[in-house]
């Protein structure tokens, strides 16, 4: 996440001023070098290297490409000259200015997000484009358990799409319409020209905040793509009649707050998400919201002040996107066509810096919040709770599911095998008991021996934890039935024979 901070626009010269060339340090690519166009030769995604939008016009590509390649060309006298950067820029230009290559590239990005998409596109090209881009993507989607569609990446720099409506979100239909507060607030928002309601809570919190203000405010400004408006743009402040929650995102100081005093609450979720909890990192003093169960095998750590999402495993999760609903305290996370909406509800009894008691608006909703979610902040008490949490956590990991499945399947298999043996030994016993009736006994015994020899030689018995072909189960079931039929009919024979 650190490099995302580097991508903030500093205030560089509008053109590279070479009248006072900077000779002190080598350019490492981290600094934005142009006031208007932000080239980033170290970025993975091509459009970011050139500082253009995801779907730039050809003249945008040409102009930005020319300026960037001019800047980084190794022959250049300036500190920006760098062969690797130049080659990165060249590659981006080459792909984005070629209609065919660009369309293939964008298809990859649309399916895997820009970072993962770029990597997969490059890999596809380095293998000599063995098949069409579409075929390759289809195959790769089949091979992966994640659905990356409609996703941006958290890894490279965080796009903060505005979930304002269907316009900015193609899958707007998926958005929960049950968040009834959405409409009126949005409307309020547009019509209202009352001055921003400074949240006293927010302002008071600033003093205690350890968050670097520039971190978050600068972050927002990096998004000039057009596709996404900044998370917290110049939206006028909202009054909070809808939810009764003071809008911590409004106003110029909105980014300086800590989560303390708020409780995360699940508004809607397509997944069986576990309870949210708030963690405080004692070293950084930053609060995180833990989201468990939304992405299998991973716990998301949502760092609100810094607007970043990370995981315990430190692995980047390609395809995760999130955004804030303008005018609400609701944060929408999307992954693999799943969606969860989390609302930050002000605590009834605010901790530390909050003095929201004065905020009378929030009373009505707080009741609801409290009754349902007040326990969320509590740590588990006793061994039982702990164990329950462990099991619950394990259940959400794929591996425990597999173990359970295998145990169940293994038991079934073991049962079948057992019944086979019972049948076998039963028949042997029967045969032995029927020794006087030589003919039938030998007949039954030979049938079963033959059957087991064939059975074992074809399939072999495997351990219950191993793979269990369905055909094997079916075969053993059928053979059990057949043997039973033979056995019972034999008894008829025996009876007949007996009588004789």
């Amino acid at each position, binding site marked *: 996440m650190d490099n995302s901070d580097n991508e903030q626009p500093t205030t560089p010269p509008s053109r590279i001023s070479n009248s006072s060339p900077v000779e002190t340090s080598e350019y490492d690519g981290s600094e934005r070098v142009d006031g208007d166009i932000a080239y980033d030769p170290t970025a993975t995604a091509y459009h970011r290297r050139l500082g253009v939008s995801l779907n730039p016009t050809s003249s945008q590509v040409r102009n930005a490409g020319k300026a960037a390649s001019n800047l980084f060309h190794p022959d250049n*006298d300036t500190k920006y000259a760098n*062969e690797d950067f130049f080659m990165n820029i*060249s590659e981006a230009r080459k792909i984005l200015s070629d209609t065919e290559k660009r369309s293939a590239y964008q298809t990859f990005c649309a399916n895997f997000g820009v970072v993962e998409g770029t990597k997969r596109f490059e890999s596809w090209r380095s293998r000599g484009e063995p098949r069409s881009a579409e075929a390759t993507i289809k195959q790769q989607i089949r091979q992966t358990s994640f659905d990356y569609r409609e996703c941006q990446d958290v890894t490279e720099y965080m796009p903060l799409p505005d979930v304002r409506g269907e316009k900015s979100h193609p899958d707007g239909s998926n958005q929960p319409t049950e968040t009834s507060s959405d409409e009126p607030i949005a409307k309020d928002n547009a019509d209202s020209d009352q001055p921003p309601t400074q949240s006293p809570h927010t302002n008071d919190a600033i003093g205690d905040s350890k968050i670097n203000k520039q971190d978050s405010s600068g972050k927002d400004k990096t998004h000039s793509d057009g596709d996404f408006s900044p998370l917290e743009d110049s939206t006028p402040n909202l009054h909070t009649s809808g939810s009764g929650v003071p809008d911590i995102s409004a106003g110029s100081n909105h980014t300086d707050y800590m989560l303390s005093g708020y409780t995360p609450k699940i508004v809607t979720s397509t997944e069986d998400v576990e309870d949210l909890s708030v963690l405080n990192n004692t070293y950084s003093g930053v609060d995180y919201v833990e989201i468990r169960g939304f992405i299998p095998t991973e716990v998301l750590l949502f760092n609100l002040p810094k607007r970043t999402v990370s995981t315990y495993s430190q692995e980047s999760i390609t395809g995760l996107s999130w955004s804030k609903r303008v005018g609400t305290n609701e944060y929408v996370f999307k992954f693999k066509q799943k969606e969860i909406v989390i609302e930050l509800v002000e605590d009834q009894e605010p901790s530390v810096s909050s003095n929201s008691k004065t905020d009378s608006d929030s009373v009505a909703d707080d009741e609801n919040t409290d009754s349902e979610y007040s326990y969320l902040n509590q740590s588990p008490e006793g061994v039982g709770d702990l164990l329950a949490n462990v099991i619950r956590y394990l259940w959400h990991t794929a591996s425990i599911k597999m173990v359970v499945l295998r145990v169940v399947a293994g038991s079934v298999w073991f049962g079948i095998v057992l019944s086979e043996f019972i049948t076998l030994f039963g028949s042997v016993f029967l045969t032995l008991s029927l020794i006087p009736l030589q003919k039938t006994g030998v007949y039954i015994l030979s049938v079963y021996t033959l059957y087991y020899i064939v059975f074992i030689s074809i399939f072999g018995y495997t351990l219950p934890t191993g793979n269990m072909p369905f055909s094997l189960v079916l075969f053993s079931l059928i053979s059990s039935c057949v043997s039973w039929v033979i056995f019972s009919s034999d008894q008829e024979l025996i009876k007949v024979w007996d009588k004789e």
Partner: protein
Amino acid sequence: MTDRKPVGIDLGTTRSAIAHIAVGDVEVLFNDEGDAVTPSVVTIEEDGSPTVGKTALNQAVLKPDRTVQEVKREMGDDVRLSIDSEKYQPEEISALILQKLIRDAENKMNAEVSEAVITVPAYFGENQRAATENAGRIAGVDVERLLPEPSAACLAYGMHKGKLNEDVSEIVFVYDLGGGTFDASLVDVDFELDHVETLNTHGLNSVGGTDWTSAIAGWVTDQVLEAGGADPSENPQVQSQVQDKARDIKHTLSNKDTAALTGMVGGAAVDAELSREEFEGMTSELFDETINATDELFERSDFGVGDVDKVLLVGGATRMPQVRDGVEEYFGMEPSVEMNPDRAVAQGAAIQAELLSDEATGVTDEIVGVDDGVVLVDVAPRSLGIKLHDDTTSHIIESDDEIPTMVRREDFRTVEDDQTTVKFPIVEGESDDATENEKIGMVTLEDIPPRPSTDESLAVEFELTSDGTLQVEAEDLETGEAVSSSFESSITRDDEEISKLQADLPTL
């Protein structure tokens, strides 16, 4: 002679020029004979000493078997030119021309040449570039860069325009018809960014101004035979005479509608007249070839003929009215006459030399009128690839890729199971049939971990640096370790070889 200055050299097929940055402007340095251009002609005298330039050209008629002309056409080929018992490689002959240019330039500048930028046709391949660089090394000059001629012309043009302070960007088409080569280049000249960028380039290494001369020479031969003269094809001296006459007629026809052939040639008196129409009829196929190459360039380019803002004519052969008119007709606009077609290339090379020079005096800044100088972006003229086992080409670097560039491909495997060494040729050219492309070197990969031949486990990386040298590296994808690889260019010469050639080189 304590000063050291960078120079730019236009090493042409028929004529060469050298330029440097003087206070306030780019100056083409005149040779000792007082000419701006030096004929690229070398005569090896009976005593083994070489004569270069105008004198050698004048002697060509008298000593046709001791004179070497148009050596540029042989560059990169494995040929030996024998004069007396000595055998000369094209690089050595070129080195002599370079030495003459540099010696005269040093006299004029009263300074030593520190380093040089030598121009090559844009469509020159790796072998030809390597040979040119070797020529420079043999001549004892530090070759800073090999610069494509059209790019050089555009640099000179950009500088010329930049002085006028016109903040615009132009798509410039360079029609460069040299003595032995034709280059078509589409260049984006951005005066605002001081950025000169070659977009596409195409060319013919077989068509040049001398082919027009040869067409006239054919006509002259006919006249000579008709008048009962000696057959030039059997007599080198007559052949040389015919060439001389043909060149005169060509130059005359550039200014006049008719040219007369009179006097004694091959022992016969000839008196004939060649009109411009006749001449153009004889050579229309040659011109059409250049137009076809231009068509191919535009087919490949993102830009069309209509996008061209300016047409530059470079090379002495573009003085022919046939070329001027033909180009004007093709583009629907009059070609620019702002640049001197003979000098623009050397001027551009001088600018680039100054820009690249460590000892830059800052003069360029003044001239070019910008602080950070001009950046020139060039492209790979032809695709570079690998000749595979089945004689097909796997193109790695594509033509028109900007250089420097690095391309990695990961879909290679060995032919046999557990094969630990691979040897494959590097080829240059667009054809999928590798045998049609030019082989420019061999790569040997060693210590490949043994594994089945079905595993696509080898990655090959091509890096083409700014000065056009190719490096090839390989990696084993499964272990992620580099496979020891060595690239041996067909024409690379080590320092030892160069110094040997240097020692053998006759002194001027």
